[in-house]
């Protein structure tokens, strides 16, 4: 086995390292990171990208080099050297991946923990999700939820509070419901229901996610957060938006023919803008309530909200009648 001279190897190694380091930071593959947690994920991704680039280059360079250097010369009937293995070398290339995955594993664990993935009591506040949206219930919910035992799940299904915020209530609870083929956002503190997600910048938000019919998945690429909405189960995402703007909310789990059209947007805005929006929604909601005295306000506002979407998507009014938000 011919190994190039030490100096060539050294230079190649340095170039390879530099290229990997550079590409790991400049791959330009990720969208904007707009939540407090997103840069953590990006740091992890960049690190893995650096390592991956290095390994990619090693393998491809060896292959391409061999393609030219070791091609069989015409009229050479002899075989290559009878090398069956090299134990130190084999130990080396078992150990290197082992060390790499150890580092990647620990780093991933750390990031996941900082995001709030390991929050053991993340099911706090599910009461709020179950509460009806009548004005009188709000106060009760707010006082109840601090210490109420959770209904069905003790472990976080989804991403909970980051370690600093564990045990504390989020600044804002929002119930997210996925249904064929729309997202509905309900603000239990004010009873507002909307088809777009509005969140105030810098405030910790908790989404209580559920589904009415089939499995959907709530995904905001700019938050680097995704969680399935599963019928019969409750899942959650907790995050703090950082940069104001409008970003897509995408359904990532196949949910039927219009799955690709199941989109809306999240609007991250200043607390003042958020309050203004909330007031206008409350006012609009009040009008709805006045118009439909005997009807469950939750169902009513959903249907009203959904009608324009439904027509676009070919859902008939029967389907809408069956909608039920718990």
């Amino acid at each position: 086995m011919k190994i190039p001279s030490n100096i060539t190897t050294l230079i190649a190694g340095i170039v390879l390292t530099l290229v990997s380091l550079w590409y790991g930071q400049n791959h330009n593959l990720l969208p904007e990171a707009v939540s407090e947690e997103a840069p953590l994920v990006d740091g992890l991704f960049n690190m893995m990208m650096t390592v991956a680039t290095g390994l990619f280059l090693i393998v491809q360079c060896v292959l391409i080099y061999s393609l030219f250097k070791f091609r069989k010369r015409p009229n050479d009937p002899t075989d290559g050297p009878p090398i069956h293995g090299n134990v130190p070398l084999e130990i080396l290339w078992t150990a290197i991946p082992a060390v790499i995955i150890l580092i990647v594993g620990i780093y991933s664990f750390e990031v996941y923990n900082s995001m709030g993935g390991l929050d053991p009591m993340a099911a706090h506040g599910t009461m709020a999700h179950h509460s009806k949206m009548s004005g009188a219930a709000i106060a009760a919910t707010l006082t109840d939820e601090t210490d109420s035992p959770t209904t069905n799940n003790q472990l976080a299904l989804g991403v909970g509070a980051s370690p600093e915020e564990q045990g504390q209530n989020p600044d804002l609870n929002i119930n997210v419901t996925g249904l064929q083929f729309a997202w509905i956002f309900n603000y239990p503190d004010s009873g507002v229901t909307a088809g777009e997600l509005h969140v105030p910048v810098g405030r910790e938000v908790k989404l209580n996610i559920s589904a009415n019919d089939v499995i959907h998945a709530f995904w905001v690429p700019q938050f680097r957060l995704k969680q399935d909405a599963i019928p019969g189960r409750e899942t959650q995402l907790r995050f703090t938006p950082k940069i104001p703007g409008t970003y897509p909310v995408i359904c990532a789990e196949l949910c039927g023919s219009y799955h690709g059209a199941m989109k809306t947007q999240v609007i991250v805005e200043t607390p003042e803008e958020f309050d203004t929006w909330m007031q206008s929604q409350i006012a609009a909601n009040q009008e709805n309530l006045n118009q439909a005295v005997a009807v469950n306000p939750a169902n009513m506002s959903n249907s009203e909200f959904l009608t324009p979407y439904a027509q676009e998507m070919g859902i008939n009014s029967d389907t809408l009648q069956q909608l039920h938000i718990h």
Partner: protein
Amino acid sequence: MTQLQVTDSANLGNTAETNTGGDWRKYFGFSTDHKVIGIQYLVTTFVFYLIGGALAAAVRTELATPDSDFVSRELYNSFFTIHATIMIFLWIVPAGTGGFGNYLIPLMIGAKDMAFPKLNAVAFWMIPPGGILLLSSFFVGAAGSGWTSYPPLSLINGQAGEFIWILSVLLLGTSSILGAVNFLVTLLKMRLPGMGLHQMPLFCWAMLSVSALVLVSTPVLAGALILLSFDLVAGTAFFNPTGGGDPVVYQHMFWFYSHPAVYIMILPMFGMISDILPVHARKPIFGYRAIAYSSLAISFLGLIVWAHHMFTSGTPAWLRMFFMIATMVIAIPTGIKVFSWLATIWGGKLDLNSAMLFGMGFVSMFVIGGLSGIMLASVPVDIHVHDTYFVVAHLHYVLFGGSVFGLYAGLYHWFPKMTGRMVNETWGRIHFALTLIGFNLCFLPMHKLGLEGMPRRVAEYDPKFAGLNLMATVGAYILAVSTIPFVINAVWSWMYGPKASANPWKALTLEWMTSSPPPVENFHEEPILWTGPYDYGIDFEEEGEEKSVEELLAEVKVDVG
């Protein structure tokens, strides 16, 4: 005179070259000859591959533009569902295990046939009905819930098509189990005297690992699908939340099979590559035992990582962490294989024929899928890219860049043995170049699409993704065109190609120690194991020159006896 030329003639006897061509009708009937069955598998599954490829072309045509404007949304969902089902259950799994496993295992271990020839034929004859059943479901509205068929969607989305889909997959799964039993018994019981496990070619080690994996995991898929069919037609509620069932339980059962399925689809190719690279690099495989044991390790680890497909589903945090670490550990045995292949090539004398090009292409492309696989194993990153085009890119780098490149390498490598004819190498190289270009053009951009925010299984997408999607569609068309030179080359060469000698590549494994194609009983005389499978580079120039074959044989018989 090298060692191989001696061995070449050693097992041939005088009756060589009497069995060329043969009766083509045997390929259309119930044959119990493992070689006929192997070829039946390969040809049948290749036809399904072309059908699955046509469906992929239709999917890419829909995605050429951001709007849903080519076929209806329902039909689009059926297209990608049936595309995946065909590629997995009717092409890669049966071609890699049923096709190459059947053809090669008895020859490689010096047996006359498989342990249970009739069972073998039965297993094959479940494939065509399974496939035809699946395709016929298009008449009633084929399944459109993805190949994962997650309830509750699969329970409410075109029940007739879904039911046919379940029946078809059950049939194909049963065929796979029957095949695995056969491989396992054959490999363990029917090896030539003197061939210990450590004298087996590495393909046999891979098939040993695969068969164990099939036997453990496939019954769980069958269980999941049977329960799903009860929910579907009998109104039970195993997985249906409206009756108190839990859809997440289905996901666990499904992935308990379907993650190992990835290794069922790649381990046979790992084995083939380990056998092809040394022959055309003229060098022994580097680290035989490491490669053999890493197959076993992958097979075992493959059983305990399934929930990495469920990181955004209803899985608690500790489960996510466990499956993240278990998944990352697979990188170690996989890395061992890749580095061993590189070391095998390094310093060799590479004959860059079509088989070798596809073999090296396999290593090159598979590595990309492996690296993105580590990224996907990391929970925080997976939460972002799960169910996006990043995953589509990853799985195609593993299953196309890996498995299909591996299948092509195997087809070119063993074509002379199977048909007794040589393929046209120029057209083979053109096929390789077109495949490599088309493949990367199609799937490389998908990494960026997924990271930027394009979910998978959508018929329409944000117009800002139009450029990269168009690129992918062009790549898919090149990929479609790339099969044309292969098909013409293979058919033409099978009929008119130059006659192949018994051992055109001067390989050392036993399948080359008999005529091309081999006689019904495989070897004209009792085969003799007289060299390790990878003992390249031992030159007999000096002592070997004067001795006659008989003298050498006598020596060997003493050694073996």
